[in-house]
């Protein structure tokens, strides 16, 4: 546990993703820096369109067509299992890989799994649940997920392709792990025969079937109802512990992130504005945007009955015409004229493992 305390898995350094559309250039991600630690959960929160999903796509080198990574690096500390004994450490620069090449395809799904917001449409409708999992397994030539201490079988099977029966067994086992009832029957179900929550579990099962080092969960519970959401989160937490997997959890639900994440990055207009440990962030938010976000959560049992919910004043700025200085300044309650609209803030350490990008905490 201690050795994995601060071992970086993915380091995103000064990432910029730009979309060159007819109306101009949109900076979907603008100079983002973050680190995902091995075995830990990093929560990424922010409003819609602030670049959360683009960051996730950039990590998989899957930026959609007009978009481009124009700047920055994504360093992936790859750890290749070699016969289950020795470990080969390798550093891969993900943005420099050919987006259709063999290496990135091995990493996608095999080492970095991803689950999406819409479980309803993320499964190919013509294939059964089992064949989806089998495909993931077959693509990465993986052997079954085994219990600890099953070393001998591991040795034997390390470099063998799985047979059909084994593959089916893996699929059933994975369905069982994500808590799908009657997995032996469900493995032959088609996506339309499952409920939304079950489909999302299947997505998780697919992502986990290859034991990835990182799971990117892009708003995995947004489309689900609250009770299913709680179950899915439980399953993810449980599985994370058992396979020591890092999770990059993208959401705009502050309640969910509070229960899941170890560390949180708050994003606004493609930039990270605050980064802190989860407790720190909720107890002691520094950035005016984070503070405003936290204030906008409705609280049960608050004394003032009938009051309006706090909201952030103003609108999300036009992406073609970003404000000068700090991008948040037109909506900021602590706006300092002459300062915030002229000087772009930089990372300031305000506490142990707590950084913020705001001129309030910077000495200028």
């Amino acid at each position, binding site marked *: 546990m201690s050795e994995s305390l601060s071992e970086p898995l993915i380091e995103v350094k000064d990432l910029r993703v730009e979309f060159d559309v007819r109306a101009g250039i949109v900076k979907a991600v603008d100079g983002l820096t973050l680190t995902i630690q091995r075995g830990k959960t990093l929560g990424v929160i922010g409003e819609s369109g602030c670049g959360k999903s683009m960051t996730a796509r950039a990590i998989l080198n899957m930026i959609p067509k007009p978009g481009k990574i124009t700047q920055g690096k994504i360093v992936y500390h790859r750890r290749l299992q070699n016969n289950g004994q020795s470990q080969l450490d390798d550093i891969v620069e993900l943005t420099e890989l050919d987006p259709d090449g063999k290496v990135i395809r091995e990493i996608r799904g095999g080492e970095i799994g991803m689950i*999406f917001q819409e479980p309803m449409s993320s499964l190919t409708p013509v294939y059964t649940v089992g064949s989806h999992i089998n495909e993931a397994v077959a693509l990465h030539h993986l052997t079954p997920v085994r219990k600890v201490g099953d070393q001998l079988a591991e040795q034997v099977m390390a470099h063998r392709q799985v047979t059909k029966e084994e593959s089916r067994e893996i699929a059933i086992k994975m369905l069982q792990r994500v808590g799908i009832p009657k997995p032996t029957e469900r493995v032959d179900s088609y996506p339309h025969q499952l409920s939304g929550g079950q489909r999302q579990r299947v997505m998780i099962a697919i992502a986990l079937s290859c034991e990835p080092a990182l799971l990117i969960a892009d708003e995995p519970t947004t489309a689900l109802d609250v009770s299913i959401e709680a179950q899915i989160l439980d399953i993810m937490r449980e599985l994370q512990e058992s396979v020591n997997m890092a999770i990059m959890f993208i959401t705009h639900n502050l309640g969910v992130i509070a229960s899941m994440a170890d560390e949180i990055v708050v994003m606004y207009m493609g930039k990270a504005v605050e980064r802190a440990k989860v407790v720190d962030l909720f107890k002691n938010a520094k950035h005016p945007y984070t503070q405003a976000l936290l204030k906008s959560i409705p609280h049960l049992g608050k004394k003032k009955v009938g009051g309006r919910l706090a909201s952030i004043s103003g609108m999300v700025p036009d992406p073609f015409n970003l404000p000068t200085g700090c991008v948040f300044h037109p909506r900021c309650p602590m706006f300092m004229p002459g300062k915030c609209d002229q000087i772009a803030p930089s990372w300031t350490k305000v506490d142990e493992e707590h950084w913020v990008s705001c001129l309030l905490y910077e000495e200028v």
Partner: protein
Amino acid sequence: MAVLEQSQPMTAPAPAKQKKVGQSYASLVWWKFKRNRVAVVGGVILITFYLSFVFLPEIISPYDVQHSSDFAEAGPTPLHFVDQAGKFHLQPFVYGMEQKLDFKTRARTYVEDTTRIYPIHFFVHGDPYKLFGFIPLDIHLYGVDQKSDPQAIVLLLGADALGRDWFTRIMYGGRLSLLIGLIGQFLTLFFGTALGVVSGFYGGAVDQLIQRTTEFLSTFPEIPLFMALAAAIPPYWSPLAAYFVLTLILSFVRWGGLARQVRGLILSLREREYALAAKSAGASDARIMFRHLMPGTMSHVVVIATLAIPSMILAETALSWLGLGIRPPLTSWGVLLQDAASVRAIHNTPWELWTVPFILVTILAYNMLGDGLRDALDPYGAR
């Protein structure tokens, strides 16, 4: 009580519905298809036609296709059950035929010679053939005993100018005509789907190239293009080789429309999240295209293909009728129509037009089947 009774019929069909939920896509399609009587009839007709014309014409027809007789341009021989004496025969029979020549017009007429009775036998020994090309047999489904009397003949649909049984010719002609539709459509399907998928998935320059090519092909007037391409087949090639080249030509000109439709479907399917999910799972482009996206177009493609086979058969018929397609000695329905395509033939041997109903029924059956498939392949749709 009244309420209870009313609710009874509501709950009764529930188990059947429940069962439907657990069924696979294929069984749902089959369930829906079965309920469409017209489509089932079409399917049964086609299966019968393909079985009898493609696989078993040697058995079903009474003679070999090249078996010519003395009865040139003889009309259909009538089947009789009651003889001159008024006696009823359970086994149908035909009378022998006598040729009469009208010395004024030089026209041949045939009269029945009621003294000679030839009963129709089933599974009679006749012209030898090789079933499926390798099983030597001489059994025919029906016929008259020719070994005992060479003058015995049964011509259900008359004979052509060489005295060949027209029914036999239709059977053998159906083999090529039906196969060219199927094989040609299969090739079209292959080219059209593959190119359409690639075109829709990649977009950009690839898309432009493929789409402009299909436009280029579709701007040609079809018949002159066929004529030019068919004329390019060297005359010294065997008719069979020419036949296959013709199939290729037909499908080569026709893949464009299908490619365009598949492209349109892929354009929408590739934006689905499951395409993204497949990519994020490490699937290659080819895998995403052909494993994840292409199946989504299949129900559409199958219907298009089924409805397009008749036009393929008709194209072959038209080309052969023009003398550009299949050449004698090979027989196809187009070749048979060509035989019948003169005023003289229509006047003297009108039974040669029996080819037409066979073509009509085939095409009708395909359309019935295609319509049924279109409804059935979307089992979750309304209706």
